[in-house]
């Protein structure tokens, strides 16, 4: 086999099954690719020994006809998922050398099904960011380059930027990610990959470092829609340790890939045609409509009137929850500690030294909107607006719409340092199309739609009904079939 890192996850699975390839060969090819690709800074911790040991077990299982669903498939794990015995950082200094004594439920599910872990993927600090520039371990570089300006380092999106870059650069067959306001879908759109945020409650949050608990959800980033379906099936499922995880059977998502979308009603929300939308994004959206129409779907205009309030609502609710969740980093139970004269000074100095600027800013905003005198004006009002955002979707789906089609991001990826240095809100606007989905707890998938004139990928987003990921996989596969094929970048970044 020429280069097994060029296989899709599904193709690698089939090649292992038919013994055209061994799990050790497959793992070693990825380990070699990772060791030559450190310029991209995708991994915070590489675990080659772990991956090879798992691959040996996989080869033994395949030989005796005892293969599990993901047997021998090497994956990357976002460093927000706790890995037993492997340093877990959340992209922050404050966790120092934190080494969990337990495994997150979702990564445990992947290991249970035979997957191998290649390492822990870089991310924005505590998943707060849209460009992977807030990581304490340095920014991740996208394998994509602008045609006219190949020296500019392009961001892979965030917060799951290590995941999206590693998948696009073929350093792993697929990666875990998490999405609180767009952190799976925006990086997928920026790198020409597929990313699905399932319905809130579909995957367990247990053992994933918490950011905003009412919004956080785990999901995969992969190179094809089928691969995302395969990974999600293993990741999803009920977990008694997360009271918000849903006790419902997990469908065979792969069976939905390739299913007909004839007669499906697709809503196109007029409020997403925002002021100043680039002609290129508008054209991509029109193409998406045409592709689904050609596949037999029916397109209807819908209205989601509270769309413009979703991002401001998010920037109250997410920081409020984050300020509570991050109260646990106090220099006592884990992570770094700065000395102080008393316990209070120790807390304050530890947190000032351990958290980066974006995290400190969000903790402070969250503390403010929850503080006495401001709680009703900010936090309770935001929760009420969140009800209205969700109601908009409820009404659209009640009117007979099966899914909603929108652009995934308002622009292509940008270069490091280009956004948000003067005004944090400029960076926040990246999530304008994705954040509504977290507000309403719905599933959303980003799927590549082609390349922009600058040579960078563009993505479309499909939003589904709660727990109807299957429809999203069918529709995303229809777009994948119709869209111009994206040729992944040649490995300009490799050493040796």
């Amino acid at each position, binding site marked *: 086999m020429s280069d097994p890192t060029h296989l899709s996850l599904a193709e690698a699975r089939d090649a292992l099954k038919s013994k055209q390839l061994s799990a050790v060969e497959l793992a070693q090819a990825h380990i070699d690719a990772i060791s030559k690709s450190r310029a991209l800074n995708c991994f915070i911790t590489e675990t080659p020994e772990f991956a090879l040991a798992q691959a040996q077990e996989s080869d033994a299982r395949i030989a005796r006809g005892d293969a599990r669903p993901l047997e021998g498939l090497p994956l990357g794990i976002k460093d927000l998922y706790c890995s037993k015995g492997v340093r877990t950082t959340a992209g922050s200094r404050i966790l*120092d*050398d*934190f*080494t969990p*004594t337990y495994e997150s439920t979702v990564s445990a599910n992947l290991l249970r099904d035979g997957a191998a872990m290649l390492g822990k993927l870089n991310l924005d600090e505590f998943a707060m960011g849209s460009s992977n520039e807030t990581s304490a371990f340095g920014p991740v570089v996208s394998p994509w380059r602008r045609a006219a300006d190949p020296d500019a380092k392009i961001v892979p999106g965030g917060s799951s930027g290590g995941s999206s870059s590693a998948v696009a650069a073929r350093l792993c067959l697929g990666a875990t990610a998490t999405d609180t306001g767009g952190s799976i879908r925006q990086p997928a759109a920026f790198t020409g990959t597929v990313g699905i945020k399932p*319905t*809130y*409650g579909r995957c367990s949050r247990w053992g994933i470092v918490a950011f905003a608990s*009412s919004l956080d959800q785990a999901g995969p980033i992969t190179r094809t829609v089928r691969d995302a379906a395969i990974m999600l099936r293993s990741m999803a499922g009920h977990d*008694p340790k997360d*009271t*918000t995880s*849903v006790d419902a059977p997990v469908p065979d998502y792969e069976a939905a890939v390739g299913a007909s979308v004839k007669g499906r009603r697709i809503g196109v929300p007029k409020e997403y045609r925002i002021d100043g939308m680039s002609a290129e994004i508008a054209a991509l959206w029109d193409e998406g409509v045409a592709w689904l129409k050609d596949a037999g779907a029916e397109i209807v205009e819908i209205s989601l009137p509270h769309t*413009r*309030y979703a991002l*401001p*609502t998010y*920037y*109250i609710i997410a920081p409020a929850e984050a300020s509570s969740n991050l*109260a646990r980093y*106090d*220099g*006592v*139970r*884990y*992570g770094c*500690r700065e000395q*102080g*004269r*008393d*316990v209070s*000074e*120790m*807390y*304050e100095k530890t*947190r*000032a030294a351990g*958290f980066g600027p974006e995290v*400190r*800013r969000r*903790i*402070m*905003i969250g*503390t*403010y909107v929850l503080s006495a005198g401001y709680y009703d*004006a900010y936090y*309770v*009002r*935001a*929760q*009420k*607006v*969140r*009800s*209205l955002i969700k109601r908009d979707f409820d009404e659209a789906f009640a009117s007979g719409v099966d899914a909603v089609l929108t652009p995934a991001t308002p622009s292509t990826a940008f270069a490091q340092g280009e956004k948000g240095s003067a005004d*944090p*809100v400029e960076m*926040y606007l990246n999530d304008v199309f994705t954040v509504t989905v977290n507000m*309403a*707890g719905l599933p959303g998938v980003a799927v590549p739609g082609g390349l922009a004139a600058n040579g960078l990928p563009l993505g479309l987003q499909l939003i589904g009904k709660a727990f109807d990921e299957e429809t999203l996989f069918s529709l995303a596969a229809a777009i994948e079939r119709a869209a111009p094929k994206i040729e992944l970048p040649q490995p300009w970044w490799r050493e040796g």
Partner: protein
Amino acid sequence: MSVDSATVRRIAHLSRIAIEDSEVERLRGELNAILAFVETLSEVDVEGVEPLTSALPMQMKKRADVVTDGGIADEILANAPLREDHYFVVPKVIE
């Protein structure tokens, strides 16, 4: 609404994050930019709207009130920056 420098210091203290005097002005600008951005919510009519506290309508699951885990003090303390026997060690809390 916007915050003044005294409020910035108060929020930092409530957040248990030490800040230098030289940082106050910059933080005030950043926090006010975010507060100006969320100000748009004041124009939404929320009369009679219930606050959304759970993303999906679900009953909080309950289980029997019995011990299901424990006896792992060594694991719990394994990552502590300072520990003694089975205790976390912190600076003096009471003089």
